[in-house]
């Protein structure tokens, strides 16, 4: 986040030095684009807060601790796809689960789907790129996340 803002400050300073008008137009264009997506962001806020309330980190912890490798991975991939948890919560959570003995395969399924598959961002993705794009990409990335977690399972010797 700091990196991103540093980039903004740096580039806007450079832009301002070159042309005041163009810089103002750039900022205006930023505002216009944001306004266009406002309803999608509002909807995302709603969906994320509902998901976090129904499936809080403690409940996810309880869900993934018990069921072992196979069921655990399936459950983890499912939970990771439908929830949206910021990195500053998800990684410490995964760290705790790792210490509690939850297999890497399960944690990989959770972390990769969390990042790569966005059930809650589907409305926004459809709006921007069309429904076909959104559905196909998320389906493909779900499969990819499963492949990644199986690979992780091999790497850490959890799978034969």
């Amino acid at each position, binding site marked *: 986040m700091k990196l991103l803002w540093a*980039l903004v400050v740096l580039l806007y300073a450079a832009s301002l030095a070159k042309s005041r008008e163009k810089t103002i137009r750039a900022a205006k*264009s930023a505002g216009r684009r*944001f306004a266009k997506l406002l309803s999608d962001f509002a909807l*995302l806020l709603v969906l994320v807060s509902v998901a976090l*309330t129904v499936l809080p980190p403690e409940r996810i912890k309880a869900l993934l601790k018990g069921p072992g490798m196979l069921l655990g991975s399936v459950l983890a991939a499912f939970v990771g796809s439908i929830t949206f948890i910021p990195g500053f919560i998800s990684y*410490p959570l995964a760290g705790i689960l790792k210490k509690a003995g939850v297999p890497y395969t399960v944690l990989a399924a959770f972390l990769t789907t969390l990042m790569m598959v966005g059930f809650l961002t589907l409305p926004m993705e459809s709006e921007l790129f069309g429904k076909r794009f959104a559905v196909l990409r998320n389906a493909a990335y779900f499969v990819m996340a499963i492949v990644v977690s199986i690979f992780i399972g091999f*790497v850490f010797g959890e799978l034969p």
Partner: protein
Amino acid sequence: MIRWKWVAIGAYVAVLVLSFAFGFGPGMTMGKNLLGFAEEMGKILPAAFLLIGLLDEWVPRAKVEELLGRESGLKGHLLAFVIAAPFAGGLYVSLPVAAALYEKGASLEVVLTFLGASTLVRIPMMIFEASFMGIGFTLARLAVSVPLVIGSSFVLARLIGPDTG
């Protein structure tokens, strides 16, 4: 036409107001979650959109086509990874950026790789991940997902077809 998005948002606000009025626990938790996520969004989104604004104004379409368009080849995909690296947040941040790149002439393949890359190689998140999961986990995850993302972009672009957006 009924705009269901706004119906859902309206219903949500009503539930939230009633929850606080009558002290309904889960509803109040939901309100807290809303604020937490809104704060994160508020920190990241303005930066992302300001950068998109600069792209709109300063980068000519021909340049984007040259670097990220149909003829850019593997270089375009590698550049997509570089562009994705500083973005924090998640898909909700990289989706508008991807849409802006696509409008400016990036190919569908490269846009897909950018989206994939933004979920894989965000530098700030990778450091965080490695500190909790170990560097081996992060490297193994990257080793298999980077080629998968690039490969899948070609397959997906063909499946989706040219008439997108």
